[in-house]
């Protein structure tokens, strides 16, 4: 058992553990922290697969930026525990959901096992080409072959930023002041 296998199994166990604990936790903040643990383990796997650039991007963008946004929203909404959400659904419904999820996983594993992959994609991994997965190699592809998808992603980001601001913005004061007839609950006093 060489070092590569040891690293893979350690990272895989941590990733699956973090993911499992994420859906098992009642406290959403603990869920977010376990997801960060799982993401760090996945970043190790990326680096092991030669994706040095992607591994660092995963840490910076995902574990850094996006999860901080999640934690920020959790704290903004002041969520303590999933128990505040009211009584749990009936046991039969929950069992059905778990059964469907496990069925989906088993099905996907069967598909992976049965799939006819290209001959290079089976068996043991060989050595990568020179400077595989480096910033230079990835960005060369990104700005030549995939330049139109990249530009489209930029437009998507712009739309998302504008959309997020518009959606999360409160209505202006004129509209809020005469909402006596609306079904919106009364605005809480900010203490």
């Amino acid at each position, binding site marked *: 058992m060489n070092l590569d296998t040891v690293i893979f199994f350690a990272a895989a166990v941590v990733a699956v553990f973090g993911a499992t604990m994420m*859906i098992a936790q009642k406290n959403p903040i603990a869920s977010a922290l376990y997801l960060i643990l799982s993401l760090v383990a996945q970043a190790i796997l990326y680096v092991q697969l030669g994706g040095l650039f992607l591994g660092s991007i995963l840490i910076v963008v995902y574990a850094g930026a996006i999860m901080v946004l999640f934690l920020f929203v959790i704290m903004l909404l002041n969520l303590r525990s999933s128990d505040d959400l009211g009584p749990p659904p009936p046991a039969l419904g929950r069992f059905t959901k778990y059964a469907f999820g496990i069925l989906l996983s088993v099905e996907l594993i069967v598909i992976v096992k049965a799939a006819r992959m290209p001959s290079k994609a089976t068996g043991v991994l060989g050595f990568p080409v020179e400077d595989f*997965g480096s910033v230079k190699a990835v960005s060369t592809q990104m700005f030549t072959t995939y330049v139109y998808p990249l530009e489209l992603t930029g437009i998507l980001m712009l739309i998302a930023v504008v959309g997020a601001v518009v959606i999360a913005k409160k209505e202006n004061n004129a509209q809020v002041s005469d909402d006596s007839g609306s079904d919106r609950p009364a605005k809480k006093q900010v203490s």
Partner: protein
Amino acid sequence: MVPVSAYLILAVVLFGIGAIGVLTSRNMIVLFMCIELMLNAANLAMVAFSRALNVVDGHVIVFLVLTVAAAEAAVGLAMIITIFRNRETINIDRYSILKW
């Protein structure tokens, strides 16, 4: 060296855990995090194939997926805040007003 199928099975397991979380979670934010986990599981499979075929195209696609995930998280969390402001709950079962 570890075979590609090991990475694929790990990706499938992570995807399945994410799917179970999406189905069972009642907390809107945890459900969102499960969607992020499923995206990342797909990304892991992409990186593994990219390594096996010795091309970096998969890395570019993963990078674009990360960008889309960031945009999705921003818009989704804005929606969660707006819905929470109106309905005072993030229980996903209570968001059934569009279901007729």
